[in-house]
């Protein structure tokens, strides 16, 4: 017996499986006794952001998020505790927020409503103007501050009480497994198009919104058309894992992008003019040549990414720049007299100087740049990357056909209810136990039943580990994929058992032959399932994709990692 155990734990395949199991557990990193509430979102310019609390970046793994443990020395155990506290603040009250990282001191700000009165007043303002001056005999441009008296509308500030400290919190995650919309709930947004659309335009609008959200990385969502009893048209969106700002940016904005030279639009967002938008690290990201710089009280970080234009758009640019003059820049370099100006929803977002060499040239490759700001460098980088992502999204998807007004925004509980996961896990374990009982009755051997239980549980853990590692949302479709992966896993282990036990009666004493004939069947079934799932991955609709990918990953783990171990365990345990 000891000999057999030694053989098992020194087997290469078993060791590989154990390594994968350990890695999976590390990736899931279960923390059943985690305390505090996790910080989900920090509003810009709020007391929290001023105090230095960082907006978590979207890539942060669930258990690594900063958690609030105590406020003013009182423990915060759940979301309700936090908001109870946040709702009862006084103006200028100082708040000590202790997180698992450090202690922050916040000051509750007063919030004002500014009302414009029906009269004007005189006000002295400072203005910076550029003046040409002769210094030491040379003419140079100097900034000079002058004082000016202007008439402005008189306003009145009315206190609205304490301003929101700007933190959005949620229950701290106990594992790194991300839950999908139907298990976790999400944000529900009701949007109203500015004008009534006919059904086909509405369809186009919804497809466009779906694409825009997907490009932005929000794939777990439901879009549906809605109307009220008086016939107003709405669009209802439910999204998992998005915050209010992102939703406002992505959905309520039309996203009309135009690049102009002078008054001529040379290209706009969408596939008509743009053939490719770079989103990989080699040609998109924080500009490495410039880096972040300090300006005023904060930081500014520039970003850049390259795009490719269609020939027509490149030709328009060539025509627009042909007659421009060249200006020598004082810092060196020669640029055209008109810059390329980028407009988003009719607001200028950036100006790019056009190099002299591009005059009249139909160049299809263009570098787009912009910047982000923040109180700290990290915040500025985050803001810059966020701006870059939104700009890339509108460049890829083009503008929405109409502007949408945000009617209401709520957080909805999951459609499957809070108790669902516990029940699902319980049912899953019961099902697994019943399988093992049947297997024991059929083969009358614990040496068959126990390895099968071990292998099936291992497959589940490794699959969840992979999901946690790649940040895959576990939703109902993914659970269906997990069931099919484990279910066909049991099927395959039965095939291995029968092929090897049958080998005894067939007088095939070579275990290698027996296992080979079992794996012939298993690999055929695996490849058939694999190619059946492939078209579903690319079918577009989110439901199919989640199911198909989970099934493929689960089945691959089984076939290449765990089921060979089952065969080996049988060989060691049953071979005389």
């Amino acid at each position, binding site marked *: 017996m000891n000999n057999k155990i030694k053989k098992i734990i020194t087997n290469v395949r078993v060791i590989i499986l154990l390594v994968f199991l350990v890695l999976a557990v590390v990736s899931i990193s279960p923390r059943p006794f985690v305390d505090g509430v996790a910080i989900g979102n920090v509003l810009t310019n709020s007391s929290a952001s001023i105090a230095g609390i960082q907006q978590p970046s979207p890539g942060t793994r669930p258990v690594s998020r900063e958690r609030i443990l105590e406020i003013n020395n009182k423990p915060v155990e759940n979301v309700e505790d936090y908001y109870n506290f946040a709702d009862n603040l006084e103006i200028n009250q100082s708040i000590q927020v202790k997180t698992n990282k450090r202690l922050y001191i916040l000051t509750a700000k007063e919030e004002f409503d500014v009302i414009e009165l029906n009269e004007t007043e005189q006000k002295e303002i400072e203005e910076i103007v550029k003046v040409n001056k002769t210094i030491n005999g040379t003419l140079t441009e100097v900034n000079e501050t002058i004082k000016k008296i202007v008439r402005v509308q008189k306003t009145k500030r009315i206190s609205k009480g304490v301003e929101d400290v700007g933190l959005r919190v949620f229950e701290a995650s106990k594992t790194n497994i991300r839950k999908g919309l139907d298990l976790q709930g999400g944000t529900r947004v009701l949007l109203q198009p500015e004008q009534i659309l006919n059904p086909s335009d509405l369809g186009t609008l919804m*497809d466009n919104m779906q694409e825009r959200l997907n490009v932005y990385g929000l794939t777990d969502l439901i879009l549906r058309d809605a109307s009220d*009893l008086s016939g107003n048209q709405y669009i209802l969106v439910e999204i998992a894992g998005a915050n209010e700002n992102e939703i406002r940016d992505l959905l309520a904005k039309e996203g009309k992008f135009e690049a102009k030279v002078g008054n001529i639009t040379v290209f706009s967002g969408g596939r008509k003019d743009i053939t490719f938008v770079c989103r990989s690290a080699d040609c998109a990201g924080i500009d490495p040549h410039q880096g972040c710089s300090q300006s005023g009280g904060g930081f500014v970080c520039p970003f850049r990414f390259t795009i490719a234009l269609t020939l027509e758009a490149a030709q328009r640019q060539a025509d627009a720049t042909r007659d421009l003059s060249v200006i020598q820049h004082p810092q060196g370099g020669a640029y055209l007299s008109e810059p390329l100006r980028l407009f988003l929803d009719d607001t200028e977002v950036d100006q790019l100087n056009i190099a002299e060499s591009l005059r009249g040239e139909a160049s299809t490759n263009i570098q787009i740049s912009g910047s982000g700001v923040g109180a700290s460098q990290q915040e500025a980088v985050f803001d810059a990357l966020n701006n870059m992502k939104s700009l890339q999204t509108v460049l890829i998807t083009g503008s929405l056909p109409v502007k949408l007004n945000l009617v209401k925004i709520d957080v909805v*509980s999951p459609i499957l209810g809070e108790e669902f996961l516990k029940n699902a896990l319980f*049912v899953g374990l019961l099902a697994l136990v019943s399988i093992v009982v*049947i297997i024991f009755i059929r083969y009358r051997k614990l040496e068959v039943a126990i390895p099968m239980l071990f292998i099936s549980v291992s497959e589940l853990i490794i699959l969840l580990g992979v999901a946690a590692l790649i940040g895959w949302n576990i939703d109902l479709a993914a659970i269906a994929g997990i*069931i099919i992966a484990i279910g066909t896993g049991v099927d395959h282990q039965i095939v291995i058992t029968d092929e090897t036990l049958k080998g005894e009666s067939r007088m095939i004493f070579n275990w290698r032959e027996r296992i080979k004939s079992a794996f012939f069947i298993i690999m055929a*079934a695996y490849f058939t399932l694999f190619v059946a799932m492939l078209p579903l991955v690319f*079918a577009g609709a989110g439901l*199919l994709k989640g199911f198909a990918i989970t099934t493929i990953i689960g089945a691959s783990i089984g076939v290449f990692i765990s089921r060979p171990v089952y065969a080996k365990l049988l060989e060691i345990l049953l071979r005389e």
Partner: protein
Amino acid sequence: MEEEVEKKDRLSGIKHFYEKQYKKLLIIPFALLFIAILLIGLKYATTGDFINRDVSLKGGVTVTVPVEINIDVLSLEGSLRADFPGNDINVRLLSKLGGQVGFIVEADVIQDEANLLIEKIQQRTNLKLSEKDYTIEIIGSSLGASFFREIIIALLIAFLFMGLVVFIYFRTFVPSVAVILAALSDIVVTLAIVNLLGFKLSSAGIAAFLMLIGYSVDTDILLSTRVLKRREGTIMERIFGAAKTGLTMSLTTIVAITVALFFAQSEVIRQIMSILLIGLFVDLINTWIQNVGLLRLYLERKEKKQNYNKSNEQ
């Protein structure tokens, strides 16, 4: 003692019938497939849809009630379902900044019944609601208009790929056709039965139909390999050997699903499990009658051809 002998006789009788009359038995799966296609076609012609959709797939009425009292979602959902037995109803909570700010009721009732729904909500929650206290929206399907077209195209490509892989493995078209036909029959026949039972399908239900492909492939490949690739014993012995393994596979799954059905509280899990259970029984017919029949027809023809060639040579 006599009983046992009788039992044995009857069993061997069935075995004998199964062995000799496989061509007649083939009528069963094809008749089932034919009736299923007819039923689904009829459903499509009368309702314009292949399936009964639940509220999330079909759309309906959403009532939003912004009240800051604690509502037991599960019990409200249960009692509203009792009030509208033919309809599908979901209740969910709305929250803002951690606090509960209301609840929404989604129901696949028609617009005219919205007032009745509100009346029942008032009764069940003991709330007095005037028209200003709630909003009603009529929502469309959560699946895009192109969803079913996409799923059918994806399935067609999937079947084609499956056939191709099986062909590469066995170097003959018969098992390819058999595997595709079995997967297709499993889905179509199960869909027809689910429609007859009046299930309202959620997106999870649709996933359950796709899960059938996985279980269907396992038994079919096992059968094809044992019958076409192995040389020991007669064809019938190989078929019975494959059936022993295949039935163990199906039995474990059926028992696991039955246990899950028994203990699952969630309507969604029950729906997935019910569809799988029906599908597995349908798969038994499609594997052990349809697929076996097709393989034997093929082998019989091949044998005749070989004998014919041999006699010609002589």
